[in-house]
C-alpha cells in the first residue's frame, strides 16, 4: 500500500512510520504545519507545533529513508480546532480539541488530501487498534496497552475513515518498549518527552490563554435554589466540577465543599452545589457517530467521557435523534461539550458530544 505517515516530530509517530515501512508499505512522511508562525523551539514538554518538531520529524524521515513533506493545514486547523475551542468555551462548554482535530483535520482534511493524491492509507502514532471482522469490516479497538490507549480521541471515526487508517502502535507493549524501539532504530527522538496538554497553548496555561480571547464580565454565582452566593469574574472561566477559586462569600449551609454544577454564558451565571449534585446518572448527548454497527436501545455498554477518564457501565436509552444513556453507578462532573465514547469490551462503538447532563 501507499501509506502517508503523519509525523509530529515525536517518538510515537516516528516509530509508527518505521513500522509501516517494515510492513512493506511505500511510505511518505508528512508533518502538518498547524501554525503559520511556529515557535522556533519547544517550551517544556510540548511536541507538534514548533520548528524544532518539524525538524525532528524530518530527521526521523531521513533515518527511515522516506520522502518527507510539510503540509500547511494552519488555516483549517485555526478554523476547525482553535476557533471552535474558543467558541465552545465562550458558550460555557468543555470541548476536547484532540477529538476535534482527529475528526476535522487528521482524518478529514489530511486524509482526504492523501487519498486524492493516490495514497491508500494514513498512518498515525495513536495507540489504538483497527481489527478486521471476517468480511474485512474495520473495527476500532482499545490499544493492547491500556495505560497508553488513545482510542477515546478516535471515537469520531466512521467505518469509511477507519478503513483507510493505520495505527501501527496499537499492539505495542507499552511506551517504554516504543522508546526502546526508537532507540534501536536510531531515531533521535527516542528520549523526547511526551506531549500533553493542548498543543496550541504555548505555555500550557489554558485558562490565561482563553482569558485573552474570551471577553469576560463579572456576574453572579448562584446555588441550586437560585440564591446569590457569590460573584464570578466571567462565566466562561469556569468548568463543571471546579471547586477551587470560587471565592464564595457565604459557606454552604451544611458547611461542605461546593462545586460548579453549571455554567451559563447566556445568563452569565455560574451555579454551584454539593458533590452529590455533581453526579449524573443520565447522559444526554448529541447525534452519535458510529465507528461500526449502531447499538440497540437497551444494550449494556461502557462509556468514557474524558481522554484519561475511566470507563463506567451504561445502558443505551435512546439513539435518535440524539444519544441518551443511563449510567447506573453515576458519572461525576460531566460538562457539556465533552465527548462521550461508548465501548463494547475493547471495541469502540461510537461517540456523541455531551449536551446537557442531568
Amino acid at each position, binding site marked *: 500500500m501507499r501509506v502517508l505517515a503523519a509525523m509530529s516530530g515525536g517518538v510515537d509517530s516516528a516509530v509508527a512510520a518505521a513500522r509501516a515501512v517494515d510492513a512493506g508499505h511505500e511510505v*511518505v512522511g508528512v508533518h502538518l504545519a498547524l501554525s503559520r508562525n511556529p515557535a522556533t523551539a519547544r517550551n517544556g514538554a510540548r511536541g507538534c507545533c514548533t520548528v524544532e518538531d518539524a525538524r525532528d520529524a524530518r530527521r526521523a524521515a531521513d533515518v527511515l529513508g522516506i520522502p518527507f513533506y*510539510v503540509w500547511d493545514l494552519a488555516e*483549517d486547523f485555526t478554523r476547525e480546532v482553535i476557533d471552535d475551542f474558543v467558541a465552545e468555551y465562550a458558550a460555557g462548554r468543555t470541548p476536547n480539541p484532540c477529538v476535534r482535530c482527529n475528526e476535522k483535520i487528521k482524518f478529514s482534511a489530511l486524509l482526504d*488530501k492523501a487519498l486524492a*493524491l493516490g495514497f491508500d492509507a494514513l498512518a498515525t502514532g495513536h495507540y489504538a487498534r483497527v481489527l478486521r471482522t471476517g468480511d474485512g469490516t474495520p473495527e476500532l479497538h482499545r490499544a493492547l496497552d491500556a495505560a497508553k490507549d488513545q482510542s477515546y480521541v478516535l471515537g469520531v471515526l466512521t467505518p469509511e475513515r477507519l478503513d483507510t487508517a493505520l495505527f501501527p502502535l496499537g499492539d505495542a507493549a507499552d511506551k517504554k518498549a516504543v522508546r526502546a524501539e526508537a532507540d534501536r532504530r536510531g531515531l533521535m527522538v527516542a528520549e523526547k518527552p511526551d506531549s500533553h496538554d493542548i498543543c496550541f497553548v504555548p505555555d500550557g496555561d489554558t485558562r490565561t490563554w482563553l482569558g485573552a480571547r474570551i471577553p469576560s464580565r463579572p456576574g453572579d454565582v448562584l446555588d441550586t435554589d437560585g440564591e446569590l452566593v457569590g460573584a464570578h469574574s466571567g462565566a466562561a472561566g469556569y468548568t463543571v466540577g471546579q471547586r477551587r477559586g470560587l471565592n464564595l462569600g457565604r459557606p454552604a449551609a451544611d458547611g461542605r465543599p461546593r462545586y460548579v454544577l453549571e455554567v451559563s454564558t447566556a445568563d452569565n451565571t455560574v451555579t454551584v452545589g454539593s458533590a452529590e449534585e455533581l453526579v449524573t446518572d443520565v447522559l444526554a448527548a448529541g447525534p452519535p457517530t458510529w465507528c461500526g454497527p449502531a447499538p440497540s436501545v437497551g444494550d449494556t455498554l461502557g462509556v468514557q467521557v474524558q481522554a484519561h477518564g475511566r470507563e463506567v457501565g451504561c445502558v443505551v436509552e435512546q439513539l435518535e435523534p440524539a444519544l441518551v444513556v443511563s449510567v447506573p453507578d453515576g458519572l461525576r462532573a460531566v460538562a457539556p461539550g465533552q465527548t462521550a465514547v461508548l465501548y463494547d469490551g475493547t471495541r469502540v462503538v461510537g461517540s456523541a458530544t455531551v449536551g446537557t447532563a442531568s
Partner: protein
Amino acid sequence: MTAYLDHAATTPMLPEALAAMAAELAEPGNASSLHSSGRRARRVVEESREQVAATLDAGPHEVVFTAGGTEADNLAVKGLYWQRIGQDSRRRRILAGAVEHHAVLDPVAWLREHEGAEVVWLPVDHLGRLDVDVLRAEIQRDPASVALVTVMWANNEVGTVQPVAQVVAAAREHGIPVHSDAVQAVGALPVDFAASGLDALTLTGHKLGGPVGAGALLLRRGVDLTPVLHGGGQERGVRSGTLDVAAVRALAVAAVAAVARQPHESVRVAALRDSLVAGVRSVVPDVALSGDPDPAGRLPGNAHLTFEGCEGDSLLYLLDARGVECSTGSACQAGVPQPSHVLQAMGVEDSRARGALRFSLGHTSTPADVAELVAAIGPVVERARTAGLARVHGASR
C-alpha cells in the same frame, strides 16, 4: 531517471570547479600566514580574486569574498546603512524592492526593527518589474534622507529582470549608493560591474556552478561600509574570517567558466525553457506563466507556472514521486510554505499563488529533462486538482 529542474536553488558544480576545489582542499595553508604554505594559499586567493574581478569587469580590490550570497547581502545592506547613517544621522530611509530575496528583505526589516531605519518597499508591476517612477519620486521627496537603495538584478522566483540601470541613474545624481543582489544573474545574463554603475553587487557560487558557501560582494572602490563580522581583519577589514581557499578557488573557476559560456549557454537554456513552457501548455492548456513573457525580460532558465485549482505542495510531491524535481519558488519557514511575497507584490490572488511551481534550468539541463516533465505533468495536475477539490469539500463538511 531524475529530471533536476531546480537550478535556481542550486546548480550542480561545473566539473572544472569541482576538480579545482578537490585539488585545493588537499593543500595546507592559511592565506593569512606568512610562511610559504600561507603564501601559496594567499596567491591562490589573490589569483581567484583577479579572475572574479576580470570576468565581471571589476577591480581586484573591489572583490570581497564571503561565505555566500546571504552574507554578502547582509554586509551590503547593514554595512552601507551603518556607514551612511554614521556620516549623516538624517539618512534613515532604505528604498528596497518589494520582491527582493529574503537575504535582503530580512536584513532591511531587521534594520527597521532594531536600528531605526525607515523602509520604503518599492512596488512592482504585474510582471514583477520595479516601478522606477516610484523610486524617483521617493528619492526626490527627500534625497538627503536616503541611506541606500537595494534592487535585485533578476528575481529568483519569477525570473523578472529589474531595470537596474535606471535605478542606478535615479540614485546616482543624489550620491545615494545602490546595491543589487545578482546571485541569479551572474552566469545567466551579461553582468558588467563597472558599466552597471552599482556600488555593491552580490554573487554566490552555487548558482553558477561553484560551491555552496562561497560568494562575494563586489564593492565599488571608494565606497565604505561598516563591517558586520569583526575579527582577524581579512578582506581589508571589511569581512573578517579565515578564507576558505578551496571554495574561493572553485568560485573563481566556476565564475570564469559560467561567464565565458553565458552568451551561447543562455540561448540554449532559454530555448529549452521555451520548449518546457510550450510542452506543459500543450498538456495543461490553462497553465499561466508568471513574470515577463518577453524572453528579454526574464532569466533564461526560469519558467514560473501556476496551475489553477492545485496546491503547490501537492504538485511538488506528485512530481517528486515521478522523478521530477522542482520548487514552489517561495520561501519556507522550517518547511512551512509561506505565501509568496513576490506573487503578492505582483497582485496575484492567493488562490492562484497557491498553485505555483518554479522550474529552473541550467548547465546540465537537456531536452530529456523537459520531456520527462511534459510526460508527467498531465496526470499530476489532474490528480492535484482532485486533491484541491477534496480540500474544498472537506473544509465545508
